[in-house]
């Protein structure tokens, strides 16, 4: 009888220990793909409507300000439009993805016409910023898992927050990076830092997401900084207005809407 009473607590403790060990094992074995999946899930939204202040800072510290709006619907439609200043006002970029193929159209008011952008241009600078067309598309709504194959390479702290560290390679030719490193906060799967390497495997850009706020149940960084370490310039995006899951009619995501000022 005494034996039995001794065995039960041992079994309970063992089970608890096994559960903890097993769970820890599962967590430790979380793959890069699973982490990216979690990131995409956490940032997923039916639609987004952002207004952002943009500051371009060159290597001499000279600053130029812009104001843009980004609207996205699902993970296959997006539009970026410049609101200020006058020389770029109404310049607009439409992105639509169908059957895995991404198409972009650019409206330049000075030309007065909507033109399709060649696939290679998507890796070029977006309107003089340190973001490429692909990067700016990512700001509107993450599609990391679709655009990158990733693996977990460790854990590191970023500004005191423990993060998963991922190494990811792009799956699309139009992404002109050889590799992306990503630090994802373990607590909430929010990406805090991303490093992009060029085709020569040299560090090209660093993106930092700061001051996550909970807006409409979505964690949203107040500030996104893209630094081009090769040039010494950076572009800072500050969120001014953020709306999630708003009603955005499909007609907004058309070349017809691009030309409306």
């Amino acid at each position, binding site marked *: 009888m005494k034996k039995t009473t001794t065995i039960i607590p041992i079994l309970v403790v063992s089970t608890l220990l096994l559960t903890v060990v097993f769970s820890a094992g599962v967590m430790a074995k979380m793959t890069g793909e699973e982490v990216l999946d979690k990131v995409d899930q956490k940032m997923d939204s039916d639609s987004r409507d952002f207004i952002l202040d943009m500051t371009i800072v*060159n290597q001499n510290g000279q600053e130029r300000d812009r104001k843009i709006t980004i609207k996205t619907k699902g993970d296959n439609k997006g539009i970026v439009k410049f609101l200020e200043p006058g020389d770029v006002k109404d310049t607009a970029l439409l992105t639509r993805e169908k059957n895995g193929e991404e198409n972009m159209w650019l409206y330049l008011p000075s030309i007065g016409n909507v033109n399709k952008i*060649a696939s290679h241009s998507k890796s070029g600078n977006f309107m*003089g910023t340190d973001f490429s067309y692909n990067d700016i598309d990512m700001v509107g709504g993450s599609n990391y898992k679709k655009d990158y194959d990733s693996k977990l390479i460790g854990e590191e702290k970023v500004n005191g927050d423990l993060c998963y560290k991922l190494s990811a390679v792009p799956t699309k030719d139009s992404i002109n990076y050889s590799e992306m490193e990503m630090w994802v906060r373990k607590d909430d799967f929010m990406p805090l830092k991303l490093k992009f390497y060029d085709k020569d495997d040299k560090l090209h850009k660093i993106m930092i997401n700061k001051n996550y706020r909970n807006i409409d149940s979505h964690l949203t960084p107040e500030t996104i900084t893209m630094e081009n370490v090769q040039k010494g310039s950076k572009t800072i995006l500050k969120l001014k207005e953020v709306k999630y899951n708003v009603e955005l009619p499909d007609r907004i995501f058309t070349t017809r809407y691009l030309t409306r000022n």
Partner: protein
Amino acid sequence: MIKKITVVFMVLFLVIALPTSVKGYQLDSKFSQKINYLNNEEIYEGLTELNMEFTKDFGMNKKLYLNPVFKLKLSENARFEETGLNEKPFEDNDYDFLREGYMDIYLKNADIRVGKQNVDWGSAYELNPTDVINPIDFTAEEPTSAELGVPAVKTDYYFNFNTSLSGVLVTKHRASLIPKTVENMINDTAENMIYKEIYSQIYEQNKNKSSAQTTTNSIMKNNFTINEAEERKILDSSDSPEFALQLTRRNFNGYDLSLNYFKGYEDLPLIVSDYEDVKAELGQIIKETTSTNISSETTSIDFGYKKTQALGFSGRGSLGSMGVWTEINYNINEDEEKKLDAIIGGDYTFGNNLYTVAQLFYRNYNDYEINDILKNAGKETLLKDQTYLLLHGDIPFRSIHKFNTDLIVDLGGNGYMLNPEVELSLGTDYSLDLGAVIMDQDDTKDFSTLNMLGNEKTYVEFTWNF
């Protein structure tokens, strides 16, 4: 001049003093001051422009857009006195004050634009052969971007995301503005042709040079006139209206494609008189003059804007890692004179953000009567077949500034034009452009495409957006 300067700067002051939004109007303004040094003429000229854009949203899917422009030429010196090509055919304050002014109405599947407007068609870089609706101000500093607004109604109907149909009705034909000196050159050419015709006929009869010359001069003075072209008021006449259609299909196998049709009038003046009739009338005049010393008959060479039809095609997409495009426009006028414009081009962005464009432009004039006239006058280069190669490159530096270069080469061996430029961003709203136009032309007096793009100059331009 002082008055004009005062007016422009008073308007500028008022615009600055106004808030950007007045009684529902959104106001965006751009002030620019350009100083050109014309290398050949060795003179400076100043060009001041205040460009304002008013937009008012009336709700109910209606929007008003007004684009008034104040322009001032600070130099009173004759511009381009050597070639005269960019000399205004009117006073220096005579320009389109209202560049565009229209109302937009957005319906469920259609957008309607009514008023004075530019209609921009085509997919090529800078030069668009299918962009046939608006005439061009060839007297402007940069004619490639100087379309003249036309009074029109434009309707864009969207069948779905990929397919749309545009219809444009132009209520009054508007001709291109060409420099007065070019008009004079064309008139002189026609006059010389008639002079030669009369002289040769009289000389054949009397074999006396002096007498033939005197009689020819008398006929030229008393019995012959040149009538310049007049713009046609389409709806006031019994002619059918000027209209255009464009069918667009986006993303067709990755390409955006458009098919265009235009029916209207040529934008450049051509001789509309039947030359055989003129010759017959001249024969009668010569006969009467040589027998009675006087003739009451008259004849004329009339310039006009011929009725024309054009069919165009444009396409744009990717080929491998390059962007590619093509544009073709085939024009046939009432006298079955044909003109073909074709462009093929591509662009590529390098890893260091160097953006490059290469574009080939071909123009063929077929059976244009004026070709013979020009041949007689030794002006074969005018309206001859033309092939040009355009190369463009731009690259940002220090993130906010840009180097910009355009090179246009006449593959017929008639020279090139090089336009290097530095765009400096002085602030979020200020910029300064420094550049030069370098020309290599055999005959700078010709009405060739290269000459129409500008003259040799060095320039600096300050722009302020507010």
